[in-house]
């Protein structure tokens, strides 16, 4: 059996990480976190996370960049904003979770086997191409990306119900002026580099 180090040493911490997160979340207040735990106790998803929202904030402040970006936690944030409206220090916790998602995508360290990042990427692609989302296709592409043939089977009953009630569409939706959209996205990506 191989023994692995479980502790992050001081020299592995990234002390610029908090500032980085603060800037891209437009949340100046992160340093004011008092570790009260209101976020974690409000979070409907906390029980499924590897680190609770309170811990994630503490880890950002302490510079645990690697552990934070590889964590499932940001991807399990359902974006319900309960923590954000309840935080006594007015920290934009949900926006911080979005920042962490983007940073983990940029650094390519997001949990690749977890469905939410795969869904986000596929939805991003289909909208950038067609200007509209097509629910069925996005879900299929997501399972292809995950290389998960069992996933779609688990959704059979919902699929059948949608089909029976005429709520499933095979059509790929598209806007008329895709040219304009593509030009816009190109202009935005060029400037942000």
């Amino acid at each position: 059996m191989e023994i692995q180090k479980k502790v992050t040493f001081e020299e592995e911490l990234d002390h610029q990480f908090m500032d980085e997160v603060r800037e891209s979340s437009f949340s100046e207040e992160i340093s004011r976190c008092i570790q009260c735990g209101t976020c974690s106790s409000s979070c409907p998803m906390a029980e499924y996370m590897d680190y609770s929202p309170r811990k994630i904030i503490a880890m950002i402040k302490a510079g645990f960049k690697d552990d934070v970006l590889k964590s499932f936690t940001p991807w399990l944030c359902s974006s319900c904003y309960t923590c954000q409206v309840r935080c006594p220090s007015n920290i934009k916790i949900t926006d911080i979770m979005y920042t962490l998602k983007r940073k983990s995508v940029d650094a390519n360290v997001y949990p690749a086997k977890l469905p939410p990042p795969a869904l986000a990427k596929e939805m991003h692609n289909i909208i950038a191409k067609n200007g509209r989302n097509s629910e069925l296709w996005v879900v299929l592409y997501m399972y292809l990306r995950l290389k998960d043939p069992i996933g779609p089977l688990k959704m059979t009953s919902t699929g059948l119900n949608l089909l029976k009630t005429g709520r499933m569409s095979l059509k790929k939706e598209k806007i008329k002026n895709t040219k304009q959209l593509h030009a816009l996205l190109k202009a935005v990506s060029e400037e942000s580099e």
Partner: protein
Amino acid sequence: MRNYAYYPGCSLKAGSKHYEESILPVFKELGTPLEEMEDWNCCGATAYFSVDNDMAAAICGRNLSIAEKTERDILAPCLGCYLTMKKNNHFLQSGEEKAKKILKDLKETGCEYKGTIKVFHPLEFLTNEYGLDKVKEKVQRPLTNLKVACYYGCQLVRPYTDFDDPDYPVTLDNLMEAIGAKAVDYSSKTRCCGGSLAGTMEDVGVGLNYVLLKEANKKGADAIVTICPLCQLNVEMTQGKIVKKYKDVEKIPVLYFSQLMGLALGISKDDLGFSRSFIPLDNLWEKLETGGKK
């Protein structure tokens, strides 16, 4: 009264057709017919914020620009669309350097946005602009005897809390009372349904929606009323698995507020998308007594 550009979003054209099928006749009946916005694109939902923030703002900017050209504010029945566009609108008007750059890109690609548009949800329009008294006057068939659990979900009242309370909103309850139904005291009304996670991670969907269903059962609700396509789908589609896993709950229909409004306004039930429910509605029609008739 303001002018509105109706923004259906992707859901109302696909899995949530019955939201559109009911909201269009209802608004027509109220004398404020909705006109769909020209060549709108998807709002990007939570996916764009997760991948690229600037692009998220840009694609919403295109929609805002289309609305601005016709001098109409946006009316978005889907809460995902509503919050995403409201949030990006906020950002584009923030004066941040990044926002200025995106506004420049928008202008250069023929989507100039000056920042004059607001984003509204139909519930906001009915409560603050149209007025519930006027809704009451239009009621032909009050939904007496019907007990509903009003489920707001999250994105209408959070993080922007300028419309209703973030934890215990009441506007949908008031609307349901205005059409004669009884709104039960539903304490899970803003608890999360899981959003897109409910579909991709089964355990999460079943776990979160069990709480919502159980509370509605406990309060004796005949139906759960929703204002968001994703809430409607999640609370409805997870019920099969919930009743298999937990023995202490019963299935109940999950309807759009616009479907019930339509009934109350005297529109035939055949024209409000009720046939798209996964859950049988027999109990509902029985309860409404007059509901089965045209």
